[in-house]
């Protein structure tokens, strides 16, 4: 069974003027069908305002579809009785590391989710320790989150979700506000979680370098899914990606440029090793 499935998902919001009268309806998401099987690493790409964040919020029942349906592990997100199970199954990490940490001490923040779920005290401690270990932040358990770097804060936020023992983690641009080393930290942590805990990861981002390991990529634009496929399939279409305000890793651009200059180089080069190998074959 799919862990996440959406069927013709539509989300509309009302535009209001200063007095609060409705002056129009905007479609942020327009007929999106997505399916994710357990254990997959799925990326959703799109420029700012493409609807990717609105989409992410549906997977956690923060938003409920205007039309269509979202199933999380078989549970309909529209069903009020399933609200907590849905949120527990698909944990969510947001963009701004400061605005999602509730606790004033790292370990207390990680314990927040389990507390809400009514987990017994001893189990909370076990979960907190385990999740902090999983993100490599155990030694910071007594620290104040304010003194941590952006990457560390984001790892604490991930631990806070992991402590709820979700089957799936949805990350909404978790690296957008981080510096390169923070970005690497977060990606490394996600990779480790995928390998060790077999957790499904849905990564929403506009950084292409982050998704070359993905099993599947969806590209969104104007609320639609406009491209769908493996990283290789997606990245071989450099010009189409540019049209959607996106970008590819520098190595892919270089490969594309060399191809345009007449060199015989395969499509969809993702890593520098691949390009070096292709060029050496020419040599």
């Amino acid at each position, binding site marked *: 069974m799919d862990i996440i499935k959406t069927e013709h998902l539509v989300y509309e919001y009302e535009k209001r003027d200063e007095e609060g009268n409705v002056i129009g309806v905007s479609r942020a998401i327009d007929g999106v069908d997505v399916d994710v099987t357990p254990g997959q690493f799925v990326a959703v790409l799109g*420029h*700012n*305002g493409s609807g990717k964040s609105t989409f992410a919020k549906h997977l956690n029942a923060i938003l409920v579809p205007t039309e269509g349906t979202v199933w999380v592990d078989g549970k309909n997100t529209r069903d009020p009785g399933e609200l907590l199970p849905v949120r527990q199954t698909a944990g969510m990490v947001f963009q701004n590391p400061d605005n999602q940490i509730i606790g004033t001490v790292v370990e207390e923040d990680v314990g927040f989710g389990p507390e809400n779920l009514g987990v017994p005290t001893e189990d909370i401690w076990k979960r907190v320790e385990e999740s902090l270990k999983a993100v490599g932040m155990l030694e910071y358990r007594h620290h104040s989150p304010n003194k941590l*770097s*952006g990457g560390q804060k984001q790892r604490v936020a991930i631990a806070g979700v992991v402590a709820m023992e979700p089957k799936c983690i949805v990350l909404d641009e978790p690296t*957008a*506000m981080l*510096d*390169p*080393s*923070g970005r690497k930290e977060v990606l490394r942590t996600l990779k480790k979680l995928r390998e060790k805990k077999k957790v499904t990861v849905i990564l929403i981002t*506009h950084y*292409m370098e982050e998704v070359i390991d993905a099993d599947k990529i969806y590209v969104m634009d104007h609320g639609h899914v406009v491209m769908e496929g493996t990283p290789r399939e997606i990245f071989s279409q450099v010009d189409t990606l*540019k049209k959607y*305000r*996106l*970008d590819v*890793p*520098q*190595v892919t*651009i*270089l490969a594309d*440029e*060399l191809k345009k*200059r007449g*060199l015989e180089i395969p499509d969809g080069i993702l890593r*520098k*090793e691949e*390009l*070096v190998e292709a*060029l*050496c074959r*020419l*040599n």
Partner: protein
Amino acid sequence: MSIKLDHINYVYSEGTAYEKHALKDVCLEIPHGEFVGIIGHTGSGKSTLIQHLNGLLKASSGALYYNGRNIYEEGYPMKELRTQVGLVFQYPEYQLFEVDVLTDVCFGPKNQGLSPEECKERALEALKLVGLKEKYYQVSPFELSGGQKRRAAIAGVLAMRPKVLVLDEPTAGLDPKGRDDILDQIAYLHKVSDMTVILVSHSMEDIAKYADRIIVMDHGQVKYNDTPRAVFAHYLELEKIGLAAPQVTYIMHDLREHGLAVDPRVTTVKEAADEIMRALEKRK
């Protein structure tokens, strides 16, 4: 005309448990009209450094000369300096506050004591320079998209007609197209005016593409101060201080190791493509 930093030291919270030596004996000269990139790991002192350039932070010791005059001497017109050296902070859209974009951009010139007509003229000029469409001028800045807000905020600094424009990570949080647009606009600004541009960035690719010269900060000290080619030739040392070279530089080094005779000192995609083509031609 230039900015010259002479043995600048800066210590945060001096005499407390949180004391931190943020800048150590920094000596730099930035001649007029240059496009300078500043890179460094978070906490390397680059933000502290740029806040010295317009006198927001005062050095614990050392001197800073703007056009030959020490800004720390008594009676130096600080307000004047701040209009000459325009500083655009990270996420500058958080400084927007007026009812509409145009009024907000007028804030800087208004503080300079200019007449309302002159303020408006400068604001319009600045908004045009950042490429914000006219239909947004009367809109509340809070209704703009992320990229537009950022443009409006940059215009707010440009409206003071600074001679030096300092930008602290102007592309943070923008999508790839938004990032390229802003950087291209800044490069265009640099080309059409005689402004000095100082760009702080985490993206080695961006810095390599735009800057004439790169200043590398590490632990409050200037580690390198040279052309992009020369700086990125130290890519192994850069990695040790939490930085890197652009991806193409690595590709070129790998190619060389695999026996293709390319010059590894290239820093942009175009240079790399040229260099690879040249090396392959020569083979034949």
